[in-house]
């Protein structure tokens, strides 16, 4: 595990996921200390490379890095490389020249962390790429479910909402499936992507059937501004049909928990009551996010730089040996 990028859950084995979760469980204790810092990554430089603003994920990675005594630098870029007239390779070269030990990448387009990882000397952690993957979110969700339920194997997990545009959905589908849970997805047909069942899930357009007997119900955030009128007729209709409240939750198992990657559109994906009270575990997810990201950084950034890096790869690309 140590010595590679974390680009997606799809690429990880069950054993690797379990190693990350066990490491995260050991990290949880550090957050409860009065002095919340260990010297594990002292002298290491981490770059939070965010092409898309995300205060929550960026802050979580920053706190995780700082609790491990790393130097964390935030490098925010807005706009696409086309509008900036700077290619992704240019960005990668610039960063690589600063000798980071790990680069955490968030981008609104799928695949950008993969392209950067191919040329960067430092390992890359994908902090969310388009509608593709968000591995640290799925891992913290796994950690939270394991904490709440004591296991993942054999559980039924229902993910509700905009599956088509959700990186959280994809990473969680891979993560929960790999650890032996049954995963269902539910949403209006306009939000279920083509051939979603090829990912090994069952898909539903009826919320009640989807959460029948579920141990975990995960609601996804709806991009209301962008999708209202396109993928669903109105927020009101979405909330009435796919929004979760206590009444609808009765179809799930009695001890079912409710999750949400945040931030919640109150009264849309979740009722106000569910957003704030058990069985929702939203703040546990946030808390576990720090420990989980500490584990990732420890496992990934504790190593030396990859041999090569941008310059030698660029040389071989132009045929100069």
């Amino acid at each position, binding site marked *: 595990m140590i010595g590679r990028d974390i680009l997606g859950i799809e690429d990880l084995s069950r054993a690797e996921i379990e190693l990350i979760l066990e490491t995260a469980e050991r990290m949880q204790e550090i957050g409860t200390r009065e002095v919340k810092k260990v010297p594990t990554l002292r002298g290491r430089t981490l770059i939070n490379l965010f092409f898309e603003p995300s205060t929550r994920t960026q802050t979580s990675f920053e706190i995780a890095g700082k609790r491990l005594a790393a130097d964390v630098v935030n490098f925010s870029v807005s706009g696409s490389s086309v509008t900036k007239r700077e*290619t992704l390779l*240019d960005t990668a070269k610039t960063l690589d020249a600063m000798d980071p030990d790990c680069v955490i990448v968030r981008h609104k387009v*799928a695949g*950008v962390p993969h392209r950067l990882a191919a040329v960067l000397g430092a390992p890359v952690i994908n902090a969310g790429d388009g509608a593709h993957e968000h591995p640290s979110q799925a891992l913290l969700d796994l950690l939270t479910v394991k904490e709440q339920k004591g296991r993942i194997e054999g559980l039924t997990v229902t993910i509700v909402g905009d599956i088509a545009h959700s990186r959280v959905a*994809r990473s969680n589908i891979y993560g929960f499936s790999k650890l032996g849970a049954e995963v269902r997805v539910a949403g209006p047909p306009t939000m279920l992507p*083509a*051939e979603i069942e090829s990912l090994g899930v069952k898909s539903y357009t009826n919320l009640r059937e989807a959460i029948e007997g579920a141990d975990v119900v995960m609601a996804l955030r709806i991009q209301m501004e962008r999708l209202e009128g396109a993928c669903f007729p109105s927020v009101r209709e979405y909330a009435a049909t796919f929004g979760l409240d206590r009444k609808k939750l009765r179809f799930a198992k009695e001890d079912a928990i409710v999750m949400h990657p945040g931030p919640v559109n109150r009264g849309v994906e979740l009722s106000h009551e569910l957003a704030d009270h058990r069985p929702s575990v939203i703040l546990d997810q946030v808390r576990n996010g720090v420990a989980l990201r500490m584990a990732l950084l420890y496992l990934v950034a504790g190593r030396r730089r990859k041999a090569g890096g941008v310059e030698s790869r660029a040389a071989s*690309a132009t045929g100069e040996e």
Partner: protein
Amino acid sequence: MTRRPTEGGRLVIRGGRILDPSQERDGVFDCLIENGRITAIGAKLAADGAEVFDAAGQWVVPGFVDLHAHLRVPGQEYKEDLASGGAAAVAGGFTQVACMANTDPVNDDPSVTQYILDRAAKESLARIHPIAAATRGLAGQVMTEMVALRRAGAVAFSDDGATIMDAGVMRRVLEYSTLVDVPVIVHAEDCNLRGHGVVHEGAVATRLGLPGNPAAAEEIMVARDIRLAEWTGAHLHVAHVSTAGAVESIRRAREAGVRVTAEVTPHHLTLTDAATMTFDTSTRVAPPLRSARHVEALRRGLAEGVIDAIATDHAPHATYEKEVEFTEAPPGMIGLETALAVCLQLVREGVLSPLELVRRLSTNPARVLGLEGGSLAVGAEADIVLVDPERIWTYDPGRGHSKSRNSPWADQRLTGRVVATFVAGRIAYGFEHKDEHKDEHKDERGVPNR
């Protein structure tokens, strides 16, 4: 490399396997060329005083005709020009290339058509045939001066990637085109249904989280345009067919006698959407690479003659334009130099015989555009390609002839190679004279992407 006149204008290509679909000829013969034309095909032709090319073990075929290339002149010479594009063409065995109108300025005026032809005469090793825009500025509203453009040398009309969405405009364009009787070439795709889609809508798009472009976007537009062609009697040519549904529509239309022809690209015949799993932007093309089911239907359509021709859709882009987010990268890949080797895979896999492959690269596309060529008949212009179908080489776009490098076959081993290309009896490309790629696989390079 400049055109080198052969001694005394006489040469003999000795002992090659002549594949000439125009005469259904497949056999070992000599080929005599005098003053730029083929003057004899036969066994053991006398060669006194002629330059002799030994073609034993090689195929001798009529020059390929590309119905669809973007040569970027005028206005985007940083991507390609007629010298580099022409050199890439002859290196790939293409002696004639039709170039698309989406230049800057757009080729929607006879002066632009003339300019392209003038520059081509000076710079290009291959014969260049401009395709003019069907509507002014490719805006899909006002039709171009087709008669004047045809007189200036345009061989077809097309707005290519800027699909004419207004069916009323399309009807008029097709109707009017019958005045000059050349094909209207369509990139058939319903833009609204496509939306921002960049990869084929299906399991791979769902895994990658990239916006999907559904097969129906093409299938619907092909059906519309076929109906309009049937109504107007125009010659409709469907560019780069990529879906099973479009193949079916074309098949039925042809059975019903509609004047519709079609082309398919080497990449749509040999790559599936799984090739985009690396997020390599050279795999971003329009229409997108499709799933295996569609590739299978395209191969069947090609083998059965529903699809007439193989065309490259050679679309050069500068490296910096492609080193961006997948969704931001301009669509297209270069293909002139790899088309033959890529399509030879179809021969090895039993989809096409060698003669049928040559028909789809040469004879049929020449007929679609009503061009001379595509034949090794006595009296024909000596546009001839020598092919070594077994030669293994590593394609290095950095050392190729195109100015651009956006190819999914970069650094890959390919089988089959053009050895020499003659245009009007003169050698335009000679493999033995200048080897830009590695013939033998000496330098094991890693795959560029993970």
